[in-house]
């Protein structure tokens, strides 16, 4: 099984997933539901450490861009489904999906969010 690469888009997706997990673990309502099912959520500090490690692997300017978009739009990265940006529901030009761009972090031309092809 492949591990996370140095691909910045992939690292940013992993970071956003992780931040979502931390948020859920700290949200009283979700926490209550998960704990009632028997899941211990005791090590949020370990997730914070993992967050620091991931952030270190992301280029500073990329991380700054991610934070800026997250502050403005909630989610910095959104999936593209059927050539549509799920952040603003506009079409993404197919040129963006070409392999030439596989290593780049592409932003939606309309809403500015970073795009991810799941």
């Amino acid at each position, binding site marked *: *099984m492949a591990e996370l690469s140095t691909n910045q888009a992939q690292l940013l997706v992993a970071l956003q997933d992780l931040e979502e*997990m931390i948020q859920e673990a700290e949200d009283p309502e979700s926490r209550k*539901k998960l704990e009632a099912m028997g*899941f*211990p959520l005791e090590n949020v500090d370990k*997730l914070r450490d993992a967050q620091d490690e991931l952030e270190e692997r992301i280029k500073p300017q990329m991380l700054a861009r991610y934070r800026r978009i997250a502050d403005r739009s909630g989610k910095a990265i959104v999936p593209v489904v059927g050539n549509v940006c799920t952040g603003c529901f506009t079409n993404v030009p197919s040129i963006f999906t070409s392999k030439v761009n596989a290593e780049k972090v592409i932003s939606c031309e309309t809403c500015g969010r970073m795009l991810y092809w*799941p």
Partner: protein
Amino acid sequence: MTTDELVRHMSAELFVPALDATKKDDVLQELTGAIVEGSAVNDGAVVLEMLRNREALGSTGLEAGVAFPHGRTLAVSRLTILFARSAKGVDFDSEDGGKTHLFFVLLAPPQDHGNLYLQALGRIAELVRQGEVRGQLMEVEDFDTLVKVLKQEAA
């Protein structure tokens, strides 16, 4: 969530009756590999990273030999549930210290606002609380029988 609704998120391609791995991280890797192979999920590395982080938060291995690796990830576009079994059992840091035999992996997209995956998790947890269901799950040999057991239609 009803069991009928629950099984709609499962599929024969995500039915793994005999896990090979015997160590926790190897199991997570095998489960992730099975998801990539059996579904529209492509980015196994992101899924594996999320599942590892979830285990770091607290083991999803509950008592009575059942584990529920789960979480939200951008790598999936809809709720995806995989069933896997290890006859030998795995040390999965379970709550009661016993070996884990049955695995239900639940992956949900972040935009799952209805908290569908928490509903699914709750429903499966409720079903496997019954010793009889767990016993039948240890024996199922195909996906159709798995569905029957979950729907409690098994003979």
